[in-house]
């Protein structure tokens, strides 16, 4: 998914990745820590909501039916009247159940006050009953005594309700014998006391059990299987009914170093959480669990439903109470939740959340988060969001598979949220970094442009200075009628190494010079300025003939030349009265004398020596030439002869000679310069200018 990048971009590319990745790592560590250590309400809300989704999507299948619910349902209320029923009716119901020989009966009711339907109490409440009848009624058995007698005949577990009031008298005790590793009580759900049935009924029961369920969040996910009532362990109705049903005495509470992990009754090992709560693995509401109390009373119930079963008795009639919200999305009577717990225990079908799940979740956040840290800054947002989706799907599938096949509750929601938060952060950081890099590049470009402008400005200034150093013939020789002198100098760059000079020595001697410093551009231009100045001062010292001047100039210019540059120079002195020309050529292009009347071009060779700075103490010689009136001389630098066309060909000396021959010998100095300049321009059009170009033309007009 990583896009191919040009190698040149890879360095800045890596730099662009570094910052978002570093931020991502810090962010990821924080998220892992949060995952591992913190347990905020938001986190548990999200986690529990996710576990509810598992339950709803994959509800448990009922396998066994260890418990049957005898329910005071609508039908029972319709036939036997409003709840609470007279306790004689409940006694009758118990007697009817006794015929089915159930293993145990758990009663999800607290008979907290004496029955007001008892005949004696009825008589007391009705002043219109005559005294004889009242006496008769009071002699009849008390309803509570009837129920107590019925209870006594059966293995009945009576409910108590945990209360936060201290209550009156001694708090009730369960009949279960607890064995525990260490002291489990402090971690359990605590009740200072409990509301129990009136003594006559309470004492008839085989045992007592706690009815309270923990519905703090509104959804009953966990039910306390063991709680603490007045500092004594107390079993829930389901667990105690089971214990009584299988005839066990002991409930063992097993703990490891981290606290309670399970309870054991008979051969049933039931995993519970540290606070004694059991996570119910729900199936949906199932009418098959229920038998209507009225059917039992009418002796119409199927005996097979009760054989060797645990019976739970409770009230389900709508409007009475006790419809609980469950994770499977249905409300169901509290008594059905107790039945479901018993099913979980019998089928050994438990939901657990072992301690390692938290570490595994954090580890997966670290692993999948690391992949995001690597990927998000490097690939397009679309691609990295696909990666995020893939990771979230993997988490969901893993969680669902663990739930389905092992009952382990693996939280995919919080890790997925962490990954989303990380992704968002990484994306922001990446975009910010991209913007930052873009801004940096823009600034760099701006700075470069500014620098370039500055250098260009300085070069332009240098060019003006250099050009200003060259004399202007039209000014210097204004009104001169003995000769014409014209020049042209065009550096290949802004500044160059070519130069020329001319001035009068006295009234009748014209000194002129063309020079060329090796190389071009700024280094050459600096040496050119030095050479020109030194040469002129040497000439003005009047040290003899041109050869001797050249010798001195060689010594002067060579003196400070660490870069080992060299200078070619062609120096001439023309006696403008006689046309007598002295010249000395130090490695420069020879001067051309355009042909006169049928002659060919002549080149003024002879004399001279190597370029200046080449050989110290070289004895330069002066050569001489006599000019005819009207004759011209053309001096050039090698920028002319070595000008190149786009094909790479040189302008060359033969071409220059042909050009000079083709022109009328009598044309002016300015015309000679223009002729050569235009020819070179035309020749090298389209090619890069290779070297500085200098042209100097002199026309001697003869004795006036």
């Amino acid at each position, binding site marked *: 998914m990583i896009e191919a990048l040009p190698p040149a971009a890879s360095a800045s590319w890596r730099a662009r990745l570094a910052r978002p990745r570093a931020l991502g790592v810090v962010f990821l560590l924080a998220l892992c820590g949060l995952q591992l250590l913190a347990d905020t309400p938001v986190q548990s809300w999200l986690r529990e909501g996710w576990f509810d989704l598992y339950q709803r999507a994959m509800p448990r299948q009922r396998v066994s039916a260890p418990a049957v619910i005898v329910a005071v349902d609508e039908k029972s209320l319709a036939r036997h009247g409003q709840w609470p029923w007279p306790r004689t009716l409940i006694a009758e119901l118990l007697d009817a159940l006794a015929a089915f020989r159930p293993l145990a009966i758990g009663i999800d009711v607290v008979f907290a006050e004496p029955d007001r339907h008892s005949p004696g109490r009825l008589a007391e409440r009705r002043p219109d009953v005559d005294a004889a009848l009242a006496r008769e009624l009071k002699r009849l058995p008390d309803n509570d005594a009837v129920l107590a007698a019925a209870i006594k005949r059966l293995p009945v577990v009576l409910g108590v309700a945990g209360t936060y009031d201290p209550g009156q008298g001694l708090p009730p005790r369960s009949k279960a014998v607890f064995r525990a590793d260490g002291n489990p009580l402090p971690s359990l759900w605590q009740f200072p006391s409990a509301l129990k049935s009136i003594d006559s009924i309470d004492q008839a029961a085989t045992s007592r059990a706690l009815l309270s369920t923990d519905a703090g969040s509104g959804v009953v996910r966990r039910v306390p299987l063991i709680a603490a009532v007045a500092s004594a362990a107390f079993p829930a109705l389901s667990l105690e009914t089971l214990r009584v049903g299988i005839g066990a005495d002991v409930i063992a509470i097993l703990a490891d170093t981290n606290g309670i992990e399970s309870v054991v009754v008979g051969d049933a090992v039931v995993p519970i959480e540290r606070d004694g709560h059991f996570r119910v693995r729900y199936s949906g509401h199932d009418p098959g669990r229920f038998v209507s109390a009225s059917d039992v009373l009418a002796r119409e119930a199927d005996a097979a439903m009760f054989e060797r079963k645990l019976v739970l008795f409770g009230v389900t009639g709508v409007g009475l109470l006790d419809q609980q919200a469950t994770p499977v999305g249905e409300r169901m009577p509290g008594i059905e939740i107790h039945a479901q717990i018993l099913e979980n225990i019998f089928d050994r079908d438990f939901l657990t959340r072992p301690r390692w799940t938290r570490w595994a979740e954090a580890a997966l956040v670290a692993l999948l988060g690391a992949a995001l840290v690597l990927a998000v800054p490097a690939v397009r947002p679309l691609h990295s969001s696909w990666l995020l989706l893939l990771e979230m799907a993997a988490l969901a599938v893993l969680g669902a598979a663990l739930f389905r096949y092992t009952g382990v509750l693996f939280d995919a929601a919080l890790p997925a949220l962490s990954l989303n938060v990380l992704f968002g952060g990484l994306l922001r950081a990446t975009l910010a970094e991209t913007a930052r890099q873009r801004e940096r590049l823009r600034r760099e470009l701006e700075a470069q442009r500014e620098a370039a402008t500055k250098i260009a400005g300085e070069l332009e200034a240098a060019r003006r200075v250099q050009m200003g150093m060259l004399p202007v013939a039209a000014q210097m020789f204004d009104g001169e009628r003995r000769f014409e002198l014209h020049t042209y100098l065009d550096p290949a760059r802004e500044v160059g190494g070519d130069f020329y000079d001319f001035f009068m020595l006295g009234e009748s001697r014209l000194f002129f010079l063309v020079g060329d410093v090796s190389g*071009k551009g700024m280094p050459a231009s600096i040496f050119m300025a030095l050479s020109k100045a030194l040469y002129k001062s040497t000439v003005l010292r009047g040290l003899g003939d041109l050869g001797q001047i050249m010798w001195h100039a060689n010594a002067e210019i060579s003196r400070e030349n660490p870069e*080992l540059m060299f200078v070619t120079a062609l120096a001439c002195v023309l006696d403008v009265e006689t046309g007598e020309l002295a010249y000395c050529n*130090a490695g420069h292009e020879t001067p051309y004398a355009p042909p006169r009347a049928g002659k060919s071009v002549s080149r003024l060779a002879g004399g001279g020596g*190597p370029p200046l700075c080449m050989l110290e103490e070289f004895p330069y010689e002066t050569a001489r030439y006599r000019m005819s009136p009207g004759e011209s001389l053309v001096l050039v630098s090698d920028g002319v002869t070595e000008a190149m066309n786009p094909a790479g060909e*040189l302008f060359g000396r033969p071409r220059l000679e042909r050009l000079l021959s083709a022109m009328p010998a009598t044309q002016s100095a300015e015309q000679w310069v223009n002729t050569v300049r235009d020819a070179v321009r035309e020749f090298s059009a389209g090619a890069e200018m290779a070297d500085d170009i200098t042209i100097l033309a002199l026309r001697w007009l003869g004795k006036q």
Partner: protein
Amino acid sequence: MLVTTKRYADVLVVAAAGRIDYQNADEFKAALMPHLENCGAGRDQVVLDLSQLDYISSAGLRVLMIAAKEVRARQGKLLAVTLQPVVREIFEISRFTLVFDIFDSVQEALAKISPLALAAYESKSP
């Protein structure tokens, strides 16, 4: 521009081919100068074989000048062999003929400075 070297006994023949101008003068200098370090009186002599050189600009001439100064400072000898008319003309105009001893062939140059090298040269190229 291509610089190659061959050794014949105590003479190092450095051959430059192609064009040397402003663009590659520094490159030429970098290729040439290391070969001059071992030359000197009683040690190596250097012959510049420019027979395959098509063109040399003033920037190239400057490198030759620097080379000549270097060798002279080491009391050594630098000889040049040129054949091509263009290069010969450039040498003549710039008077580099006054700086270098110029020969028409490598053989001639070797004959002038080292019989040993000449023998080695002739045995290698029959």
